């Protein structure tokens, strides 16, 4: 029994030693993967080109309906894709709804409206006639 304990002790010790060797052998930064399709806050703030591009995007305005950008990317001029700009005033009504009411009722805050607008997960049943 004693012999058994000794052998076990030696074995465990040598296993530890082996582990230690392996641990130091492997690269420290192996787990730090840098993505190539996105950048971080730091990049935006340190690169004037990115910063300007980001700021310009702030002026892109509100997305008018929750259906926009289905076919094309959002951008200037997208007020003509589904609802007209006038539809979010009291001049006209976009009869497909598509959650334009969020803006009409002023339920989108300035920040949210510019950074990103709302998209409801439920669809109005009458919107099936569009396009």
């Amino acid at each position: 029994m004693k012999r058994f304990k000794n052998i076990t002790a030696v074995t465990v010790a040598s296993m530890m030693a082996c582990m230690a060797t392996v641990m130091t052998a492997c690269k420290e930064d192996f787990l730090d993967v840098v993505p190539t399709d996105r950048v971080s806050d730091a990049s935006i703030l340190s690169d004037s080109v990115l910063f300007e591009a980001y700021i310009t995007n702030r002026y892109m305005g509100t997305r008018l309906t929750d259906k926009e950008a289905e076919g094309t990317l959002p951008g200037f001029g997208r007020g003509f894709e589904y609802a007209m700009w006038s539809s979010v005033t009291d001049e006209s009504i976009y009869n497909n709804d598509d959650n334009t009411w969020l803006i009409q009722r002023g339920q989108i805050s300035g920040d949210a409206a510019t950074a990103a607008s709302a998209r409801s997960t439920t669809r109005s049943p009458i919107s099936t006639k569009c396009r």
Partner: protein
Amino acid sequence: MYGQAQTAFSVKGTVTSDKGEGLPGASVILKGTSTGTTTDVDGKYSLNVPDGAGTLVFTYIGYVNQEIAIGNRSQLDVKLLVNDKTLDEIVVVGYGTQKKATLTGSVSEIKGADIVKSPQPNVSNSLAGRFSGFVANNRGGEPGYDGSSYTVRGFASTGNSDVLIVVDGIPGQVGGLERLDPNDIESISILKDASAAVYGSRAANGVILVTTKRGSTGKPVISYSFNQGFSSPTRLPGLADAPTYATIMNEIDYYNNPAGGMNQHYSADEIEKFRNGSDPLRYPNTDWQKETLKKFALQNQHNLGINGGTDNVKYYVSLGTIYQDGLYKNGATKYKQYNFRSNIDANITKDFKVSLGLSGRQENRQFPVSSAGNTFRSIYRAYPTVIARYPNGFYSTGVENSNPVVLGTDMGGTSSNPTSIFNGILRASYNLPFIEGLSVDGFYSVDKSFNFTKTFSIPYTLYNYDSAKDAYNSVVTGGSAGKASLTQKQVNITNITQNIRLNYLRQIGKHNVNAFVAYEQNKRSESTFDASRINYPTASTPELSQGGAAATDKNNSGSSYNFTRKSFIGRVAYNFNEKYLAEVQARVDGSSVFPKGKQFGFFPSVSAGYRISEEDWFKNSVRFIDDLKLRASYGTLGNDNVGQFQFYNNYSFNNQYVLGGVITPGIDLTKLANPNITWETSKKLDIGLNAVFLKNFNIEVIYFQQKRSDILAARNASIPNTSGIVNPFKTNDNTPLVPDENLGKVNNSGFEATLGYNHSGKFRYNISGNVTYAKSKIIFIDEAPGALEYQRQTGGPLYTNLLYNTLGIYRTQADLDKFPHVQGAQPGDLILEDYNKDGKITADDQVRSKYGNVPLLTYGLVFNGGYSAFDISLVFAGQGMVSQYVLPESGQVGNFYSSWADNRWSPSNTDGSYPRVDTRASSSINGGLYANNFWLNNASFVRLKNVELGYTIPKATLSKLKISSLRVYASAFNLFTITGVKDFDPEGNSNSGQFYPQQRILNLGVNIKF
């Protein structure tokens, strides 16, 4: 008795079982010779041998062979022990093997020899029903995409539930399980409990271990098998014929405009013409299934394997092909696979061993441009009142310019998708000379896959007959805006895994120790390249260089990512005399998915077992139980299969705008940061009992429980839309701006039981039944606050539906007046239950369904038998406590299943069991507008998953042909099914029923060994 020249010594005796009964027909042979005899009815034998120095070998089917030296004795009585194969078996577990007798975890195993009994070329379809704890559903049958979705003990996460596949020790080997050649598989083990903790952060959903065949010492055995299969759908819905559909169209018009009467669309005369076929051009009666689909499709498999070796070098090499044709007439759908495998093991010195495993596979998929879902959608929708093909050869417009007869062919172009997969594993092991039992081993594995897709869409012309002008109007469809278009895509994956391990395996007296520590690291890289071009002047130049010339005619995209992991793994398994069993294992996993400083997770598990039957008092007092083991395990496992880089704010170029006449890319916030993102963790408890009793019976009973926490999910429901961060501009993968948070909690618990019986003798067989009950319970998910108690998902199982209850059909106006009903309801509509009794039918009356399309109950029955040269095997699989919602796309937009058409309520059939027909089922009061449980089917079933009947040609007939064994067999997959589901296969999971149906395969095969 065999007369011999020198018979100097005579020996006799009795061969008995350990109960003392004589064993008749047992064989007694002098070792190393052909001298031998068999016992008589009382188990007695007598044998003359040259001298008294030899050894006798006693063998009897179902018992352990015994060798006894004669030692000049003339009387040798032998007691043979029952062969408890189940206990001597070695089972593959994570990072090693274990004797089944000393196993403390819940592990199910199947041998490759059983898998090849199924004519299904897709391995994932050959496991259902075979053992407890494995829940599999074959969701569709399209060649190339005909695998099963499977879980270990059901679902326990709202996130990813993929089971980790480990092939020959490589976790997550590229190529996976499904497309392995079944002939190359030695065994498949499924780790169901905390014993999977040795795979740490990837083990929470269970682990499947696949071991491929290796060489064995001996002269080469060449084995060839051929299978010819005939596949056809397990079931297709019956569809309404033209006169029925024409009548239905009239009814729909009547419901929409009752004043117009019953013949607004077709006159009775016209309907009669549909019925009698007198004018097939104007009044056809088209069976679109018959027009589009063949009676059966062919499939075949060839496999050639060579197995052999010397003491120092052993090899297993194989070649295989699989061919599967699609069901469409003149169809473009085909799957062709070529694969090879070479496993070579060499002893360089007595202590130093090297092995090299190389395998490669070419998977060639080809499809028409129309997806299978779309083609079957068109088959089920296409109007029976429209001809498939005009007498002059023109194809009709089918339904909305989709003619299913054309969609399945290459007329609209094809999508070809060849994928090459290569796996290489180099292993070495060295027994360290200075301490007995200590060894070091390691492997270096490289996986590569190249997945290429080329889709060329060609415009083609369909025709519409204008009977008034007796002219055909043409419609150009397919392609892109009337011209051919091309997209090409390449996805390359590289997966490199390195492992080094120190093992200690030693038996000292009654102490058995098996321990290891290991370091493993893995890097997976994936890159995607995509290009497309439109406006091809001609369909004869399907190359990216030959399309439209304008800048807007061309597009491209691409992406790539790396995923790294490093792991420290250790295990100590100890047992005392194979009676007291204990095991501790742990894995420290680091993953690049998580932020620096939080990359590592700790996943330990402990298990213990007690073989009561090894106690002397038990052996002496409980004689009918031959083996009894109690065991339990508990551990923590993880799931890191989540989106990368969510721990900081992500900005990407995802939009564009015009500034000063220049299109400028716009960069925007695409993901908010969750700096605290971490593992999904699973704590698994497992308590089991294994027993062998009355020699031939075996039983296993397991209780299991899992508590999953920190499930990653986006906080969608509780954040108001007006916050603007829930789901803004659609991102590429349609994910919300808010990052995943570790917020979900799901429990999963249940039991498994298996009972088996082995019968040896002239008619030898074993039969084994298994049952699994696994129920999940949502403890916390991000549900909208204020959700009604009976609508909440929390507290119930995962993946249920929110539906209105139905109480039948309003047979008459009087019925309609009696119940609260929605606006627009008419006689013939479904009665929706006013669940909250407020006198109105509102969204609050929806109720959460009891079951979802994940079965809580699954069961199976396996039978293997043999009588002289014949053998038979059967696998039944079944499920219960499961439901599937299917609402067909019927109305003016599409045809009806016969079940609805023939049983519909109508003013002239007020006793119909189905509601009245409507313009569009999806926006009907009876259908999608108030989704209800009328369309929720009980998807329970029992089916004969697999049957095989084989005959082995007697050796005597073969010896002249130099064939060592020849077996012919007939087999079938999904031969028959007992279920209450009428229109589709109960294993499907489509809410519309529009999918490529599961296959029934009838197969003939031959297996020859040289």
